[in-house]
């Protein structure tokens, strides 16, 4: 049945008056230098963007990056900080699909072996689905997204390396040349404080879903690259948290939703039990991680699925993104995360055990409440003044 669109309403981020600062302007909220968020795939990006926005409303900004095969832009989200509105900056994204895949495969033996159309990894995938060069996206086929990652693996690794450096490796805090004794003392003190802060665990939070393609592939492949870069950069201690969304939340979005999700869970469970092992990428780029598991902890967040029919509506999907971001923000806040993981560790649960997260929150926007009160006061004052006769 084709339902006509009956009503339009303005999207929250669509109104952009002149006094809103440019999206890239720094929001006056302190950075969280202990958390790096990596959002993979369309839903990972949607939830990641919301998560970062909620963190901003909670007073800290984690470093966040995204990776996707789809060039569609996220709808902007607006936040109020103090007396000013800001368009929340979107996490910088690595857009897979810049290289000519046919040429890349032709030139590399490993890729040729893996991605021969109709065989091996690409068994059963239609030729039409592989012609996504112009359209982008991986059409719900994880092997196609994986092919993209494999082709651009070095660029992806560089992107992740930059993200890790920016997030965790702070520039050295040294006193400027010619600094006074006082300035040197302050610089040393700050360096000490930073070191003390950095003694806390560095968290890498990776968001992905198994129901689609890019999140599915990235959720399995990026841990190889991340652990290798972590070793190279000597970042420690590190806690890698995987956050898996769905599959009910994506019910009916593609015909592959259930199968893709089940395949990811099986594959991930295998790696969680046996370790990542060795993986050879193109141009002899080899990563050998032995028994290192992809994630230290895996969180699951799902939605109720389609409330009517066989496919979730856009509204249901957006509601899920909001809910997932809220649950994630609540679960990852340090006080709670440390307590919950402490208990889980006490129970000696293996890494292959997962944790379902649910949450609900009440919120008061202090800045907005103050603005509302101020406005009502202004009105009352004007009423008093305007009623006086001349």
């Amino acid at each position, binding site marked *: 049945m084709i339902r006509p669109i009956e009503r339009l309403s303005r999207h929250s981020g669509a109104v952009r008056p002149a006094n809103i600062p440019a999206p890239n302007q720094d929001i006056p909220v302190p950075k969280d230098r202990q958390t790096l968020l990596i959002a993979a795939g369309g839903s990972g990006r949607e939830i990641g963007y919301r998560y970062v926005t909620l963190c901003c409303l909670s007073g800290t900004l984690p470093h966040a990056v995204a990776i996707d095969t789809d060039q569609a832009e996220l709808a902007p989200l607006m*936040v109020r900080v103090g007396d000013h509105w800001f368009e929340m900056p979107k996490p910088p994204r690595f857009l897979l699909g810049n290289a000519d895949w046919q040429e890349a495969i032709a030139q590399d033996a490993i890729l040729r072996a893996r991605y021969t159309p109709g065989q091996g990894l690409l068994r059963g995938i239609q030729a039409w689905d592989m012609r996504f060069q112009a359209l982008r996206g991986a059409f719900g086929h994880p092997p196609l997204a994986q092919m993209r990652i494999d082709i651009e693996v070095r660029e992806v690794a560089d992107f992740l390396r930059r993200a890790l450096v920016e997030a965790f490796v702070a520039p050295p805090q040294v006193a400027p040349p010619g600094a006074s004794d006082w300035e040197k003392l302050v610089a040393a003190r700050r360096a000490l404080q930073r070191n003390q802060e950095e003694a806390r665990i560095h968290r890498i939070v990776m968001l992905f879903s198994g129901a689609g393609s890019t999140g599915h592939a990235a959720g399995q492949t990026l841990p190889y690259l991340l652990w290798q870069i972590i070793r190279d950069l000597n970042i420690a201690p590190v806690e890698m948290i995987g956050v898996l969304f769905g599959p009910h939340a994506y019910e009916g979005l593609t015909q592959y939703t259930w199968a893709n999700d089940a395949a990811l869970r099986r594959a991930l469970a*295998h790696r969680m039990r046996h370790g990542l092992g060795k993986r050879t990428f193109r141009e002899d780029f080899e990563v050998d991680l032995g028994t290192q598991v992809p994630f230290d902890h895996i969180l699951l967040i799902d939605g109720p699925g389609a409330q009517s029919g066989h496919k979730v509506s856009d509204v249901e999907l957006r509601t899920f993104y909001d809910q997932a971001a809220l649950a994630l923000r*609540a679960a990852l806040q340090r006080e709670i995360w440390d307590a919950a993981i402490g208990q889980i560790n006490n129970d000696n649960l293996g890494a292959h055990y997962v944790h379902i997260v649910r949450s609900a929150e009440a919120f*008061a926007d202090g800045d907005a409440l103050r603005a509302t009160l101020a406005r009502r006061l202004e009105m009352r004052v004007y009423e008093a003044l305007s009623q006086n006769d001349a």
Partner: protein
Amino acid sequence: MTAATIRETVNEPLNINEQVANFCRARHLDESLPGEFVRDPISGRVLQPVVLEVNLSRKDLVAIVQRLRSGPVGGHEATIRNNAEAWLDDTLADLARWFGMTRSKTFCEGIVRRGEEIIRRLEGIQVAQSKRLGEIERSLAQPIREARERRKGFGFFDRIFRIFQAAISISESISLFNEREVLVRDAEALKCAITAITEVISEAHYAIQRQEVLRKAAVEGKEALLRPGYDTAGIVPFTPQHYRVALDRFDPPDDAVSAVLAKVLREKPQDEQAVRDLVTRFAKEEAKRLLPLDIVRAIEQEAAISEAVDEDPLVIVGEHLLNVMQSQPLHPKLTGREFAQTFCYTPDGQPLFDADGLQTRLAPTPWQFGFVQFVSGLSLEQTCSESAIKALERDLRERNVYIFEDLIEQENVERSPSEESAPLAIADAAFEHQTSGNHSNT
């Protein structure tokens, strides 16, 4: 009962003169005002100056000489000035409130007339006080000076002896000393009263002279506020939380309005834009003061201005949030071996609720409280529904879904004995706990 009070009692509107009189009575805007400033702000008792007693010991005599030689002791000046400043703040706020209520510049003109009249009277008292103070100073200074001039080099007790022999006796000196201390205290109060009343008059003058400016600014300001999107610029902020506090119906108290008005009048802005800028600035400051400290108080305040309920509003909101959280799906069929950790995060990290198994932690900001639950004890395989596994096995017959060759190989190994669907080795015993159905909640 005065005529004005009787008319007020029967809700009959007062004329301007009666309103002026009421205002002045309420604010002690008369000759009694200096007396209000010489009171202890906490106890309300009159501030007592230093007093010397007549029955003197030798030690007291030394003290007298030292004190008579110097100026007055005083000591209450700071308290008197603080009292005057507090009175001025309250009176200006009151003036702004009355000015707003009376809707007439005649009221302000009445205040100006009354203030000027009181200042004239207080200045008369001030002249008399000053004269008397001069007399006392001269009376006290003369015998000491004479004694000093005549007997330079004489001993201490000799000088005291000279005082006894001077034009005034020691008891008179003590009495004059005590009177001088009272006068000094009252003179300070008088001076502060005149300054404060002058400020009130200046304010009222301003209100009269700039009434048109204020009125125009008010009309323009109201129009701007009523323009759509004035505050939010038409933006809907991202607030996906399950309960949001709104204080749209919260009416700021009259005191707050008066305080803003008083601050604006004190600044004496000269044009409409300046008035509006000040109103905006002071309204923001006042709003900050009025704003609840955290979400808990904000919820209570919201409940207080809404329809009355018998239950604790925090419990109502808390139960709503718990219901929302617990209605979110868990999906996999639970085995019964799982365990849940439920946290409540609150503005100060202290428990808001008593419930079995509920842990409390600190929220990131004072404007949040909520619940989060971790359900642990399921392996990844157990979170796969049977229908999803069937879908995967169906799909695997037609296309590859895995992204790594080793997993495909493993799948093929598992499948090789027959083409029938068989679980991977990795999804072994865990599936025993699976039963049909993929939507279940706890």
